[in-house]
């Protein structure tokens, strides 16, 4: 529990979403596939942003896969979600993870419709 009255927690996503994010990481030998992100953390950050913009959270199901905590500090995003954390007594990590999970669903939908991942910023 932090001084602000909410828990920090940790981030993680389902294995399915992790696999999806992995498939979005840039590979110089496979440039014809839509792989816009430099790392899996970058992809995770994008998915989280997508979820929060669409105000959509999805609970994680199945086994979870972690995201490198050193490269993703949940406190950097506390301003955006602290009210929600206090109000629902949830940790920042949980909230971010659920937004990211939802973001992955949105990405998957876009890919299914042959849209590019980055078109989701429009």
């Amino acid at each position: 529990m932090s001084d602000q009255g909410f828990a920090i927690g940790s981030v993680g996503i389902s294995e399915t979403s992790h696999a999806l994010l992995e498939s979005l990481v840039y590979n110089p030998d496979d440039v014809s596939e839509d792989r816009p992100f430099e790392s899996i953390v970058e992809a995770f950050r994008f998915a989280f942003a997508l979820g929060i913009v669409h105000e959509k959270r999805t609970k994680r199901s199945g086994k979870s896969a972690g995201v490198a905590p050193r490269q993703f500090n949940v406190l950097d995003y506390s301003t955006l979600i602290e009210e929600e954390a206090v109000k629902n007594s949830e940790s920042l990590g949980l909230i971010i993870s659920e937004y990211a999970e939802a973001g992955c669903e949105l990405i998957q939908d876009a890919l299914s419709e042959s849209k590019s991942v980055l078109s989701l910023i429009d």
Partner: protein
Amino acid sequence: MVGEGEILMNSTAYEEDSTQEMSVILFAEGKRGSIEITRTARSTTTFARSDKEMEMSLDVKIGEEPLKSGPDGQEAIESFFPKELERFFFIDGEALEEYTEMMRSSALEGLKEEVNSVLGIPALLRGDEDLTRIRRGIKSKIDSATKADIDSSKALDELNRQRNVLKTKIRESDDLKNKLETVMSKLENTKEQMQAHKELAPIVEELKLLKAQIELKKVYLKEAAAEKMNESKIAWKVLLWKKSQQQHDSLLTIQNRANLRERSIQQHKDSIRELETLLKETGGLCPECKQPHPEIEKYRVGKQQKLDEHKSVLTRLEEEIPMSSDELTIKLGALKMFKPQDDSAERISRASNKWKKLVNQIASLEETYERLDAQLTEDAKTNVEVLGERKGRQEATVAKRESEWRNAQNEVNQAELEVRRLEGLTGKSNLNKEDHQLDNIISSLIVAVKDTINSYREQARKNVEKRATEVFAKLNNAPEVYTGIKVDKDFKTAILNTKGKAARKPSSGAVSIMTMSVIDALRHVSGMDLPVFLDTPGRSLDQHHKSKLLDYFWQTEGQQFLIFAHSGEYAVEETVNQFEGRLARAYTISLPRDHRSCYQPECLSEDVEHNSYNKKNTCNACGFEWDLTSQKTLVLEVPL
């Protein structure tokens, strides 16, 4: 070897002659009739102990020619059989390594004379020497002439040399022209073949073009993908800013309002302080003129009301407690972290669209490529591609050859100019014209002889290499390892491996066979139809090579072949049985003690009684008796 009706051997001569003397007489038939050669060795002392104490004589009778003795006799022999050739007709198996070393060594002096002799070159060399000698005489005459004559003579030498250079240049130019014509002919042929596929050519060209476009687009795609990846690093900010911008702006408004409030509170406090001071200090006097004022009370009431209003507003403002300034600053700072650059979204979209466009273009090109490609069979495609590549190569070669030919023509022109210049110089000579002409002719002849020798040696080298390779192929037991013989310009030899290069460490058997093959090839190329004597040929050969050797040399046609082998090389009975049809005669050489059965040709009984005390054997069938201590060599014919 004949003496008093019986075979004369060394031991007899040694034991019985008062003056030891031995003769060897050789009879032969040749193109010049019967040949009789007698060599006699006579002791010059009572008891000769070395060759130095022996006197040698030679008598030669060829056909109807008069008898020749001594050096004349030797010259008569060498007139039909040069001494240098003995290596190729009297082959000593024990000296095979020596032969091999001579062929392999860089210092080939050991074989050079022999090779020249085999090729019949000595006559030419002698001709060259004779001409040089004659020319030296003329030169000395020329040397005594005036400076102009000398210069003219030198110019003549130079002219002859230059004419030779011109000749060479013309030959080289012609060679290059021939090569150019050959390639041009091949190019025409290729073009004709391409005509057969002309309806496919546009498709193949289109495919090539498409392939090039696809490759190029793929390069661009790689760049576009990397660019997209770089731009997408802030894609999350673009998204989050949509969410946080409103919050950021609200907080900013709050911050502005808070700043206004602070200023307002201060203003109200200042006003209150001023009004309180005013009310306290004024009493019943006018604050302006310091005189009693009739409406001072009314004035004070007005000021009091203002004071109350300020206090009321101040109370309200102080009761409105917004977010603390520090907290506002922190939150605004955190939210600003999510703010992308103004054009970030546009740049990300542009990079993404560029990548997507290229992906679509490549997919479209690949689809077109596959559609066109399906119209061609693999064979047709391969043919057209191969022909296209060949045409390209040949066109490049034609261009190269044309350039070479032009250069060669220029060199010919320059050489011609030089010849004309030298011709002009030789015209200034005051030299006796006959000497001049003779010198010129001999100079040309010397050049011609040298050219002939070189040309002949080269041709002979090729023939020797070819023949040696053929013989080697017949005798070699490892054709999968050793494929032939290489003979270089100095007649150095090497065994070739399957890659056509010199084998690094050939087996000793292969080396022996190579040596035999080269000797045989040299003899063959010499064209001399003489018998071949081979002494202990199988000394360094294995069973396979030994058998192959006899099989090759003992042909039913060709040169007569005499082999002198010891019992360890070839078994007499087995060899005679194997090659019976090809043998004219076979003999064994032995000592009496080697026989345990009777060796009389008409008897050959094995019923022999051995007397160890007297060291004698006696045949019980015919009564023949032989001394086992005798050193008298027996030459016995093997019945065929």
